């Protein structure tokens, strides 16, 4: 299980238009985007997956039933695999000798580019599943579109990940429907959980200058085009679950620029302390 070996290869995929099948260096003439933008993008996607995996991993042994411990561990493992591939790629593009571990375990709070949604603490199982529904539905649309990216590495990661997150989304839907339309108590808790995570969904579709350039180069999918599908897909689940859509004008944001919530520092402290306590050690 080497780092390099864990990165899905884009072999067998149809050659994207314009590359003529020739091997292209990362960051790169074929796509016309700068390495810097690509690094930012790989970190954004990789950090999303990593931090979500970290939150879910911390729940194992605390879930409502044994099967759920296993399902959540499985989802965390998938996300961790995505994070490793994306962070490894970011490190290669960056060219400063940083690998997945240096990026995950040695960066500071302000250098992480994940959305705030994934770092929210899991106060309640309804929060966990509501958040997973928002996030996995977004990831599913994103990865499916990203398989057509002109960046072959990203397209390869996305092809594998899209299959994984389809299962995550099914799992989240399974629970949101059962909690929403289960008992009176579960309905109330699911509605409250949804209210807690919903405002953070907007950040998933935020477009800044980097995102715009990547979209223009057909490296990143058009986020604005993905949003209606995300909204209707979640809307269907909420209807099935007898849950009310959340009305809010509050749209917290900042994660993509390294601005996070207060709880995030604690998450990093826990995740990073061992490696940081032993500078230069190998594990």
């Amino acid at each position, binding site marked *: 299980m080497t780092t390099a070996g864990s990165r899905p290869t884009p072999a067998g995929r149809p050659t994207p238009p314009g590359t003529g099948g020739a091997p292209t260096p990362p960051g790169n003439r074929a796509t016309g985007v700068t390495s810097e933008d690509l690094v930012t993008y790989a970190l954004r996607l990789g950090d999303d997956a990593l931090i979500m995996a970290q939150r879910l991993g911390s729940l194992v042994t605390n879930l*409502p039933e044994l099967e759920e411990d*296993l399902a959540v561990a499985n989802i965390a493992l998938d996300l961790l695999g995505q994070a490793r591939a994306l962070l490894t790629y970011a490190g290669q593009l960056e060219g400063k000798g940083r690998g997945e*571990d240096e990026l*995950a375990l040695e960066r500071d709070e302000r250098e992480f580019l994940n959305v705030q949604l994934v770092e929210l603490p899991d106060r309640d199982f309804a929060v966990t599943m509501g958040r997973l529904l928002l996030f996995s539905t977004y990831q599913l649309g994103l990865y499916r579109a990203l398989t057509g990216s002109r960046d072959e590495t990203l397209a390869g990661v996305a092809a594998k990940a899209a*299959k994984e997150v389809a299962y995550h989304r099914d799992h989240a839907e399974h629970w949101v429907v059962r*909690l929403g*339309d289960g008992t009176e108590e579960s309905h109330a*808790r699911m509605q409250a959980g949804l209210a807690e995570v919903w405002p953070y969904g907007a950040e998933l579709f935020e477009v800044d200058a980097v995102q715009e350039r990547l979209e223009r180069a057909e490296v990143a999918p058009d986020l604005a085009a993905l949003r209606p599908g995300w909204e209707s897909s979640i809307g269907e689940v909420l209807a099935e679950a007898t849950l009310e859509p959340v009305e809010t004008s509050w749209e917290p944001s900042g994660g993509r620029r390294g601005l996070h919530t207060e709880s995030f520092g604690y998450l990093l402290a826990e995740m990073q302390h061992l490696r940081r306590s*032993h500078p230069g*050690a190998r594990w």
Partner: protein
Amino acid sequence: MPADTGIEGRDQAPSEVRVAGEVEELERRFQELVDADQRIEPRDWMPEGYRRTLIRQIAQHAHSEIIGMQPEGNWITRAPSLKRKAILLAKVQDEGGHGIYLYSAAETLGVSRDELVDLLHSGRQKYSSIFNYPTLTWADVGAIGWLVDGAAITNQIPLCRCSYGPYGRAMVRICKEESFHQRQGYDILYTLARGTPRQREMAQDAVNRWWWPSLMMFGPPDEASQHSAQSMAWGIKRHSNDELRQRFVDVTVPQAEVLGLSLPDPEIRWNEDRGHYDFGPIDWDELRRVVSGDGPCNRQRMAHKVAAHENGRWVREAALAYEAKLEAGYKRGARASGRAA
């Protein structure tokens, strides 16, 4: 349900009504099968004591897998590399899977998983005492893999041939995964032992703390073991506690040498005459204390397990209520929710 016994008297449970001599005949046939190394299957007749012994043993084994997820799960959020984090997550997930296979094996004997979990939560069934020790440093994850999974494999390989079919088959699947776990644990310690002085110290400290409790995993010495003789006759157990413990020591001492770590027992030395390693006396009082509830983590492990169960009650109730609505036709029914993928 047992097959028709052809006996009158419907007020009594059919399985308990046997004409004189019939039970002796069944017992004789059962013992013949066991002695011939044939498998007993759930629908076969079996002595009540055999059934009860198996339920107790399989349940204890299942509970151990589940409680064992806690000390290792304790390091998932703090693993020092993403690769180690992934391996640990997968390991903890495997242990939960082992618990599920084993609960299913126990269910073939006529108890439900819910009943067994209740017995665990109320303290009437136990789990392996090894999990009542804390995982204090990252090296403990390595020591558990190497020593605890290693001891478990030594115990469990003979169980693959257990006379009770479902248990033996569950053990075959489990043993394969346990040997991965052991190699991964060994690899953690190997890396630490060749790392910085502080890493090496961490590895040695973990081995010092886990060595004796691992030897205790094989249970009390043969002369004090209550159930052994009958379990052997029934083909549940194949080797005595002391034989298995010796086998573990013999395999592990050379591995410690390769690691370059010492074992915390000055009396370990090769005994040419016996063809085994000698080792020092085990503190059986410690095992008794930990088994009876006074280990460092007994209270913590049970409180954690019970809290997870209680905190999840509303979720399980919601799932049941939802299924009831589906069945009552209140819902249009199976929309593509669930595991379509």
